[in-house]
């Protein structure tokens, strides 16, 4: 089951859905908003998705995980909009007969989600500025910071 939602993620319901009499293991992964990144304070993260494509890619990831591992239940939920510190932006739950498969599938799902699914986060910094996170791209602000650091050495 895959879902994009603007509501806070209800982990208890997700664990409930992952439970199954044939399962010996459930692994739940939560990605949560971290308050500090390289010493800068985050007020919130703001998530945007290409909804139709994100849902399709998430469904493909679930299908592929089921091909690779003996997955019983698989739940992937990504929250959109503003996510304050300590709250979850993503939840992945996998149940399998034996635990090593649940860990492997859970880790593969979050790694693949972060690489392939068209969802983006924007940092909302404590100084009031915002900044889209696009890995591999050096933004103007980061360049300035680097220059300042270099000069001060």
């Amino acid at each position: 089951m895959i879902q994009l939602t603007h509501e806070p993620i209800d982990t208890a319901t997700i664990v409930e859905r992952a439970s199954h009499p044939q399962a010996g293991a459930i692994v739940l992964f939560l990605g949560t908003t971290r308050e500090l990144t390289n010493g800068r304070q985050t007020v919130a993260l703001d998530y945007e998705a290409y909804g139709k494509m994100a849902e399709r890619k998430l469904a493909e990831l679930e299908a592929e995980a089921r091909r690779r591992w003996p997955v019983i239940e698989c739940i992937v939920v990504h929250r959109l909009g503003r996510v304050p510190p300590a709250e979850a932006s993503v939840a992945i739950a996998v149940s399998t007969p034996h635990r090593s498969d649940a860990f492997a599938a859970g880790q593969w799902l979050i790694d693949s989600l972060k690489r392939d699914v068209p969802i983006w986060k924007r940092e909302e910094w404590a100084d009031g500025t915002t900044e889209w996170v696009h890995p591999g791209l050096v933004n103007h602000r980061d360049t300035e910071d680097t220059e300042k650091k270099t000069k001060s050495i």
Partner: protein
Amino acid sequence: MKVRVKLFAAARELAGSDTLELEIADRATLADLRLAVAKEFPALQKLLPHTLWAVDAEYAANDFVINGRSEIALIPPVSGG
């Protein structure tokens, strides 16, 4: 041929719009479209080399030949999770 390109995240903010509209040649590819976007929307030039294309909600290669019916989206580096 007229095409629309959906934009997200920094691309949307840099362009000031969630959709671009461009005229391109019939049988143009996504590679051609990238050149056209760079020319007509200079604000996107720095971001463009780092983007992928999606056609009908699936990643598509640069040599994909555009038709008028497909939904085209510019995909900047993703950061979900």
